[in-house]
């Protein structure tokens, strides 16, 4: 599934998502305010380690997407002989590790609900219920579009010796637009937004 939520249940899963998100925002502010972001590394590392070795290992693995970025920034700053690179990279690693901690220990529904709560001040612009529905629809449309692409590839392969490649982009987009139209009708048929 499309989620980073860790299947390893820890005490941190039971802390409300709102608390974790607020703490994360505070940490980010600190990270950018201080010229010595590495001072924040020990508490964040301790937090992750306190959830057990298996969880910590998973956290480490989830940092993998950062590797190319870190390498590039490191090489670039080495070439420039600019020590700022160290600050940049530590800040990024700590920030991303903390962000992952929040997503790994919070359930999708709970995070949606928290975002809904935080968005309450905007309720004159968008009703919290509508926002929650929009978030849910988006999360659903992502695999649906991929499934559409698969179905279209399958139908293509059933009639063609060649793989479709990029040619599926337009049919998939059109099919997805039709899906959105049908979803709108299905929503209306069961009471709609109101």
């Amino acid at each position, binding site marked *: 599934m499309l989620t980073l939520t860790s299947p390893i249940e820890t005490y941190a899963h039971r802390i409300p998502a709102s608390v974790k998100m607020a703490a994360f925002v505070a940490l980010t502010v600190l990270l950018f305010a201080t010229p010595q972001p590495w001072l924040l590394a020990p508490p964040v590392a301790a937090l992750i380690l306190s959830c057990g070795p298996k969880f910590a290992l998973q956290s480490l693995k989830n940092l993998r997407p950062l590797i190319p970025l870190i390498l590039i920034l490191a090489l670039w700053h080495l070439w420039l002989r600019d020590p700022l690179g160290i600050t940049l990279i530590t800040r990024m690693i700590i920030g991303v590790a903390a962000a992952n901690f929040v997503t790994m220990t919070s359930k999708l529904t709970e995070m949606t609900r928290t975002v809904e709560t935080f968005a309450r001040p905007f309720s004159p612009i968008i009703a919290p219920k509508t926002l929650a529905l929009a978030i849910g629809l988006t999360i*659903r449309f992502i695999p649906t579009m991929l*499934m559409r692409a698969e179905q279209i590839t399958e139908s293509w392969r059933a009639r063609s010796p060649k793989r479709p490649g990029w040619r599926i982009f337009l049919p998939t987009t059109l099919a997805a637009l039709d899906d959105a139209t*049908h979803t709108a009708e299905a*929503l209306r*048929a069961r*009471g*709609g937004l109101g």
Partner: protein
Amino acid sequence: MTTPQGITLTNASVTLGGKSILSNLCLTLTEPRIGIIGRNGSGKTTLLRLIAGLIPPTSGAVTIDGLNPTDRKALLPRLGILFQNPDHQILFPTVAEELAFGLRQQGQTEAAAAAAVTHLLSQESRAHWAKALTHTLSQGQRHYLCLLSILLMQPETILLDEPFAGLDLPTQIRLARRLAALPQRLITITHDPEAVALCDRVLWLDQGQIRADGPPGPTLQAFTAEMAKLGEQDADTHLPD
């Protein structure tokens, strides 16, 4: 003042993409069991969407118990719709969420909706469906799920677009029995005359117009005779644009 009960169409027409699909329909539908039959492309699904307020009439008017069908909120307890293609109806990734959504929309609490869903599924001996992913169900299973989700909401009128197509025989037999026992008004759309033989009233839709309207006996007889005649020909020699 009494508001008119049932579904009324007054000179209702629908034009889509510059093509006239339904023309000048005048109908008052009040019978408890109504069948609408017609060929592919005759406008059955368009008529359903018009009645359900999913598309507005290009001209003329539609009312349901005196209300405008585009007022979905007022209509929710009055009208339920089974779509012809289950993929066009299913909104949620799991069976339980799909079933619960309608009840939540009707104002039930999350707990009440969940309980109703569990009860329904166990009644259907399909408790193991609750957590099943809707997109992995077979086509017939998805179709049946859509039906269950409408029946669960207990609307006063249920519009069914080809409710039996794609269902296997035991499910068809059970469904027919179950539908027959419902106190609600049912409007069944189909191309299969057998499916509406027990209705109080059958309408035959042909190229967007009512070709016949009355008790099932004579209407279906005329329909079946015409269909057999057309089937003998090698192609539709006179299809309009």
